[in-house]
């Protein structure tokens, strides 16, 4: 049992980060904090992929005669794309937050929805 937990320590940590992100996302009403939570959630997935591709004892996947065991480069390549998507999402989210702040003069979700209902 202990061995199982320790052997999968990277996955446990990733799940922890993911849950922290998701919890922040759902529990906070501040829009900036929500975005921070979303970012953490995405980062956890990126870590998950990268640790999928890691082979114990494997090296960087550059062909050389000294090594025969390489880590799988594909998940890292995929995550490069996912990181870019994440950056774009976060940037767009912050742009929206700035415009919401200009329009409502608040970044608290409960205040904003109260203002919306009044209209």
């Amino acid at each position, binding site marked *: 049992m202990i061995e199982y937990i320790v052997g999968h320590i990277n996955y446990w940590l990733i799940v922890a980060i993911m849950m922290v992100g998701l919890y922040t996302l759902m529990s906070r009403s501040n829009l900036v904090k929500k975005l921070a939570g979303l970012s953490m959630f995405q980062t956890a997935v990126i870590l998950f992929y990268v640790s999928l591709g890691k082979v114990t004892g494997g090296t*960087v996947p550059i062909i050389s005669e000294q090594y025969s065991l390489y880590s799988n480069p594909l998940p890292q390549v995929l995550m*490069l794309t996912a*990181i870019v998507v994440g950056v774009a999402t976060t*940037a767009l989210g*912050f*742009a929206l937050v*700035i415009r919401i702040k200009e329009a409502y003069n608040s970044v608290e979700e409960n205040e904003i929805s109260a203002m919306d209902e009044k209209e």
Partner: protein
Amino acid sequence: MANDLILRVVTKWLSPIIILFALYVQFHGDYSPGGGFQAGVIFSSAILLYSLTYGLDAGLQLIPEYILRIGASLGVLIYGGVGVASMVLGGNFLNYSVLGSTPVAGQHLGIIIIELGVGITVASVMVLLFFTFARRVAPE
């Protein structure tokens, strides 16, 4: 921050080195870890550092915004252009092998141009993001 002597001097010395490193990462991307994404971000960090120490206006003087907009579009066009060129030359979209006299030479040429396009777009977009945000929330 524009008055801090140490920051100003260090930025002045550091920026060219960062840009040089970005170019190294960019053009060695086909042999070693690196490529357009990383190089673009490193390149933009040099300009970000410069704008942070010398102020937004100095940064905008260095690279005006319309150039960044053109750069962001140009990178995508370079990327797509390589794909279209390989289609015109009889291969599938993004099949670099048909670009050169031998498949290996074509692959080399193709990936370098592609990464150049990616690098230009990523660098422009990163700086553009910074400028857009910085101007929007700048204290009057």
